[in-house]
């Protein structure tokens, strides 16, 4: 086991950002975290990385674990003269040929000498990934790696992540911006919303007609749908209500509305 979270939680500004998270990542395994905005996905990843210390529970990391982190927000402003090559060696000491291999694998070799502040969103993400690959990690954490990348680029990046996993046999913790669509080769999906709402494997529906009509035939190889099976719902005031033995099974319209909001991740107030 590379990392193991046991009932871990982070408490900030009088509230729990996440609580009671138990999960683990094994070598060669891809775990995808999904959940609405502010549900604690990044916080959970940072806890696994040791950037944030758990206020409750335990986090175990294998000794000598080599980590690569693709952070969600990385602001390289103009005042910082930083070429792509120099950025690749931010926490590494890699040779020129190693850097070229990493850049080639994310198709960014042509911008090796460009300034980081001049890159487009997609280029930036691919450079971040190249840097992560360069470190030959045991544990790769990717926080929304496909942001700013177009749809075809997204499929390509997922394919690349899968290749890295197969080549290095590293564990991958991937945070997805999408609530329902995940990498098809994900071994496990964990849905967070302040706590673990549900977890499971993505449905093998990539070949279904419905999926094809939604995302096109080309997507079928890279993406999969994840079907949520929640036994509770999140109320607007942050309370959590069980739906298994809910007294009002004939729910009024407003409750249906809340559930819809919960599903799309909008209009959510977290506890």
């Amino acid at each position, binding site marked *: 086991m590379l990392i193991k979270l046991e009932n871990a939680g982070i408490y900030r500004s009088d509230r729990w950002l996440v609580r009671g998270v138990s999960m683990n990542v094994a070598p060669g395994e891809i775990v995808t975290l999904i959940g609405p905005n502010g549900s604690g996905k990044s916080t959970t990843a940072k806890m696994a990385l040791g950037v944030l210390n758990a206020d409750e529970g335990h986090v175990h990391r294998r000794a000598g674990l080599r980590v690569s982190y693709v952070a969600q927000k990385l602001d390289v402003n103009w005042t910082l003269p*930083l070429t792509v090559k120099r950025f690749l060696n931010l*926490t590494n000491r890699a040779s*020129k040929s190693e*850097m070229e291999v990493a850049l080639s694998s994310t198709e960014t070799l042509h911008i090796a000498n460009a300034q980081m502040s001049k890159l487009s969103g997609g280029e930036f993400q691919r450079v971040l990934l190249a840097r992560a690959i360069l470190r030959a990690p045991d544990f790769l954490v990717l926080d929304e790696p496909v942001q700013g990348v177009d749809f075809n680029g997204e499929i390509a990046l997922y394919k690349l992540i899968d290749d890295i996993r197969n080549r290095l046999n590293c564990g991958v913790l991937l945070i997805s911006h999408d609530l329902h669509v995940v990498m098809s080769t994900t071994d496990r999906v964990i849905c967070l919303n302040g706590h673990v709402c549900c977890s499971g494997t993505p449905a093998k529906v990539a070949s279904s007609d419905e999926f094809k009509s939604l995302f096109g035939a080309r997507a079928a190889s890279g993406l999969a749908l994840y079907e949520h099976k929640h036994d509770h719902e999140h109320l607007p005031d942050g309370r959590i209500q069980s739906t298994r033995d809910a007294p009002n099974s004939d729910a009024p319209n407003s409750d249906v509305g809340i559930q819809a909001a919960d599903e799309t991740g909008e209009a959510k107030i977290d506890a």
Partner: protein
Amino acid sequence: MLDDFFTRAVIGGIGVALVAGPLGCFIIWRRLAYFGDTLSHSALLGVALALLFELNVTFAVFAISLVVSMLLMLLQRRATLSSDALLGLLAHSALAVGLVVLAFMTWVRVDLMGFLFGDVLAITSFDLAVIWGGGVLVLGVLSRIWHPLFAATVNYELPTAEGVQPDVANVIFMTLMAAVIAVSIKIVGVLLITALLIIPAATARRFSASPEMMATIAAIVGVLSVWLGLLGSLEWDTPAGPSIVVAALGCFVLSVLPVPGMRPGLKSALKTGDRSSASAAQDRPHSSHH
């Protein structure tokens, strides 16, 4: 040669500029442009406390600067207010507390003008020894922590996650800043040291392709500003410190002007930067990949 006050001023000013250039780059990269001001303002509190408890002034200023920088680091970690708001808060509170403490000591009179502008022309041989000895020490330490400090400047969480400890480098950097401010204030004044931190670094950005290059150019621009400023002050009988700042401003204005002949020069500068950073990468021992 060192008997001449003007020569001492030039050598002292150049010493301060050489240290301020590289440190100033980090100040700009970290968006802490008011950090120098904050430390300088809080220095007055240090002066007041030194007089109150009969301590060495430079030591008291250093101690207060250190406390303020650590306070800033802690408050940034909490991240409820943005860095610029925190700097403003600390700067003006420390200045006000300093003035209030001074007002209680009716028997003391502090020369505020001297505090603000210092007097480069009054640099003694002992000051020169402090500036150059301390300067070599500061640059030596800075080069040792350069790699983790730069990584932490780009992003705090990334190096933390990947096992490069940014906290140690951050604390050392803050200590260096506090030391430089404490020593410089007495010799060159608040205005000059903060200007020498910010303006040469800002000037250097346009001509730099790598962080190391920017630090070097900033130091050179600083030295140039000191030289030109002091010459000007001698020629036109203007105050020395402000003349240096005006010279630095002149360099900055020249650097942002769209000079037509500038392009090829900039391009070659970019190329040299790439080559040097690439060869530096090759020189380093390879990391062990498991």
